[in-house]
């Protein structure tokens, strides 16, 4: 398994190519991707925004806008924590998609904001247990924005964040139940 990060050097941001490779290699080892699958990370340094997406699953190809890896305190500089957070979530989603037992989620472009957020929470929960930064309250705030500011939503978040090996059907059920409860109490 190889990890490739492009470009080799950056001119518009002060990112260290090797530092990104190191973070991704550690993530690959920690997450445990299927044997023989390579990982490519394409960083678009021209864009200071935070979009990040999976372009392909074999090899796993991720496209990340430079702003997603940027230190919010230090413009144009790399945040290794932020990089692990963004790349880690994408790699876990890729691993889920490659796992037949997980189920068959729709393409990313067809995911609702609520389902995308719910899946992210489950990814971050798993990353946290692997020793990466949690920012639990930040994730809870994002989840509440998509599922309502209620005890039901918080309970749903707790399940997504703490439970292991949820399937896509589990994630959909938890998300839709929370949204239904929020709609009923509105």
């Amino acid at each position, binding site marked *: 398994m190889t990890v490739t990060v492009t470009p080799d050097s950056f001119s518009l941001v002060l990112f260290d190519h090797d530092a990104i490779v190191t973070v991704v290699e550690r993530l690959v080892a920690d997450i445990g991707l299927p044997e023989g699958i390579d990982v490519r990370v394409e960083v678009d340094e021209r864009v200071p925004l935070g979009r990040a997406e999976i372009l392909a699953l074999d090899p796993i190809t991720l496209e990340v806008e430079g702003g997603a890896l940027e230190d919010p305190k230090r*413009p144009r500089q790399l945040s290794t924590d932020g990089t692990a957070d963004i790349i880690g979530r994408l790699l876990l989603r890729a691993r889920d998609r490659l796992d037949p037992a997980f189920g068959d989620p729709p393409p990313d472009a067809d995911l609702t904001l609520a389902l995308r957020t719910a899946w992210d929470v489950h990814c971050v929960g798993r990353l946290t247990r692997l020793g990466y930064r949690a920012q639990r309250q930040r994730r809870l705030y994002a989840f509440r924005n998509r599922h309502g*500011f209620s005890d039901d939503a918080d309970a749903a978040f707790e399940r997504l964040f703490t439970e292991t090996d949820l399937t896509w059907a589990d994630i959909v059920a938890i998300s839709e139940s929370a949204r239904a409860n929020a709609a009923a109490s509105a």
Partner: protein
Amino acid sequence: MKKMLPVEELARDERFQRVNIFEQAMDPRTVRNREEGKGRSGPQKLTPEREDAPEAARALMHGIFMGEIQALEGAGRTCWDFPTGPGREEAPFELKLDMARQCWDETRHVEISIKLGDWMGTEVGEFAEATFLYEAACNPDPVLRLTGVNRALEGLAIDIFNTMRDFGSVSGDPILEFCEDWMLADEVTHVKMGSDWLRKITENDPERRANALEFQRVVDKLFSLGGFRGEEDDSPIRLARRFRELAGFDTAEIDDIAGLSVEARHDADALQQKAAASVATGTAVAP
């Protein structure tokens, strides 16, 4: 205690990191988004439908938190930097009382903002601190501080609090909505203080009033931040006309701010194109 404290000497601990507004404005990456059709496009008003809405709200509210700290520092400095009296180099006692009251409000806003940050999952100092608010509060003329800070910057705070209160309401976040509503009420009084004192102090000095209003225009334009605040569809922060009226702005003044926002957007586009050109040719861009 030192008079006219420079921005470099503001007390901050290791959690905070400052950034230069010019460096931000000159970031060459933004223009490339537009040229190549990347980055954001379309309406950018902060609504729950935006994928990045929770993150954008967190960053914006941290910026407000830093602004509250600097507003506290600025109002406090105005109580101290000038001798008490009616003269041109002085500040009337009643004005200082208003500034002291504003300090009380800003302190409460800092506390609210910290608790709001806890609610939204934001750490103190998580985002960079831009110090331009305090820098506007360092003017040696107290009347220019009133126009630059109370009318221009606290006016911007009205626009932001109103926008964020609406965002909290639409997204169903009762904490954000209440926090913004309460702080918004205070900001209206701060802006009105600026409007009232400007008229009172410069009643018989039209030249000083003109200078103060020109300084306000400069600050208003700077704080329009390339179209960040305005009345266009893709302005994340909307100009809050009704609350500005309550704070002592007339319609012509509000129209003027809307026009400055459009100008600021055009200026920012030109700056970014210049910066992008400099990157392409490997030359530096002078401020």
